[in-house]
């Protein structure tokens, strides 16, 4: 057996090998439980320190699946806090600004003029004397738990989160910690709204079985090696909720004429074998030259992929049981000259093209599942991250647990 044909299930036998139900992708009841027990209970990445570098900087993040709108603000004391974007007086939306970001000393409700400091305290109430014993200290903005890790800001909509962010990230925090994220301040950001369940989108980015087919003309040749023709993962690590795999690259890839020129001016996404020394010791620890990237899924739907000279992320926000906001970001160093900027443009456009190929399957897959024709997914061993995803999702959501107990919401 070749080193590439390992069955990773042997390391994680508890996952089982049965086909996996398609029901979580199409059941409105499953989605309702995800809203109630998943997205409103776990830590969700909403931004980065660099988004709000100065005291008073803020942005608003709407989390549609939880009917939430959250203000994330850096206080005058430098501390990042989050609050529901809801005035404590009559419940009006506090920040209406179209761009939903800016800098301020105070948030003032446009309905009756109540004002709040960047720390959430109620600081002014017009005509305050006409209230009946109003205590300002009791009427601050409703806080939302916020914390940061490696410059990524996370929030948790649970008023009493079961774990802090460090505990939540657990081993994944250790695995991905220490990557020099701050060295890559330039972002190339794409968004698309997709008519698909969020897990259909997530799953498409959680395995490399599709690369041989969907990416044949873009990133196929650069990743697939003679020795590993079906592009099996080089390693797999499954944690309590999060998951990780190493995706192979082809170090013998012959660049296109444009790719070769782009590489002379910068380290592009279309290169293999260069820059391994820039990785922290536990990423590609053997410094294999056929390492492409470390694929990481932070539960439930935030992906951080790291490789030499860059990293890139995906995030999937449910907008409904059959609609998802996808955001993909390429993070690169600040370009110092035209050559580096050109190299980045080529690099991120090659990835954009691959992402366009990826997104092309999602709506059709979801439409196919919605027909009800398919009750189960047959998942291969290299798709083990997908299998793990459904397992840990059910651990959190408990849809089948409830069903086994005979619980019925409809009586």
């Amino acid at each position, binding site marked *: 057996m070749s080193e590439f044909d390992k069955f990773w299930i042997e390391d994680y036998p508890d996952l089982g090998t049965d086909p996996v139900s398609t029901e979580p992708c199409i059941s409105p009841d499953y989605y309702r439980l995800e809203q109630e027990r998943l997205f409103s209970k776990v830590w969700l990445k909403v931004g*980065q*320190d*660099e*988004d*709000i*570098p100065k005291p008073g*900087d803020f*942005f608003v993040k709407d989390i549609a699946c939880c009917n939430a709108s959250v203000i994330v603000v850096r206080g005058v004391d430098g501390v990042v806090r989050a609050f529901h974007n809801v005035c404590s007086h009559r419940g009006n939306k506090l920040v209406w600004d179209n761009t939903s*970001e800016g800098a301020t000393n105070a948030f003032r409700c446009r309905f009756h003029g109540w004002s709040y400091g960047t720390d959430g305290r109620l600081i002014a109430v017009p005509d305050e004397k006409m209230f009946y014993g109003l205590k300002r200290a009791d009427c601050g903005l409703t806080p939302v738990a916020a914390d940061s890790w490696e410059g990524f800001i996370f929030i948790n909509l649970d008023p009493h989160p079961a774990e802090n962010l460090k505990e939540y990230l657990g081993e994944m925090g250790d695995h991905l910690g220490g990557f020099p994220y701050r060295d890559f*301040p*330039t*972002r*190339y*950001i*794409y*968004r*698309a*709204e997709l008519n698909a369940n969020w897990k259909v989108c997530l799953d498409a980015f959680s395995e490399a079985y599709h690369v041989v087919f*969907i990416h044949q*003309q*873009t990133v196929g040749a650069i990743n697939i090696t003679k020795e590993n023709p079906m592009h099996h993962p080089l390693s797999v690590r499954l944690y309590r909720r999060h998951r990780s795999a190493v995706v192979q690259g082809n170090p013998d890839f012959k660049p*296109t*004429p*444009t*790719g070769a*020129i*782009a590489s*002379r*001016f910068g380290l592009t996404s279309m290169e293999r074998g260069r820059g391994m020394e820039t990785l922290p010791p536990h990423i590609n620890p053997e410094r294999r030259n056929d390492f492409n990237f470390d694929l990481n899924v932070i539960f439930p739907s935030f992906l951080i992929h790291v490789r030499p000279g860059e990293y890139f992320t995906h995030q999937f926000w449910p907008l409904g049981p059959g609609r998802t906001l996808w955001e993909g970001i390429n993070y*690169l160093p*600040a*370009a*110092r*000259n*035209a*050559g580096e*900027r*050109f190299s*980045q*443009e*080529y690099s*991120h*456009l*090659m990835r*954009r*093209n691959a*992402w*366009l*190929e990826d*997104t*092309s*399957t999602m*709506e059709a897959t979801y439409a196919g599942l919605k027909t009800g024709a398919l009750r189960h997914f047959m998942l291969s061993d290299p798709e083990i991250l997908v299998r793990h995803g459904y397992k840990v999702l059910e651990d959190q959501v408990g849809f089948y647990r409830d069903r086994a107990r005979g619980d019925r919401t409809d009586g």
Partner: protein
Amino acid sequence: MADARLPSGFSDLDGFADWALPTEAARAQRRRDSTLDDIRKFYDAMLPRLMATLDYLNGFPLDRMPEPERRLFDLSLAFAEIAPFVEQYGRTILPENFDERRFVPVRDNPTTGAR
């Protein structure tokens, strides 16, 4: 047109100066609106000049280029947009059926962290 000129050393590319569009969205739209023959002509003319173009532009500050140099720079970014469609796809749009216009570059890429 006098206001669409490239730097004097690159006047051989003047015929393609209308590709020098300032945003990724505009360059991608131009690619989609072109024929394969259009993008091949641009590719064939620009590829042999690409190294010289970038070496020349590296002599100017990225954020303060004079107009003709800025135009040549935008032209090189348009080349980055079309090159894979010549080198890899042999067509002007991706073979899959996802409508690229639904794929939105946010804030005219790139953004640095600072808002």
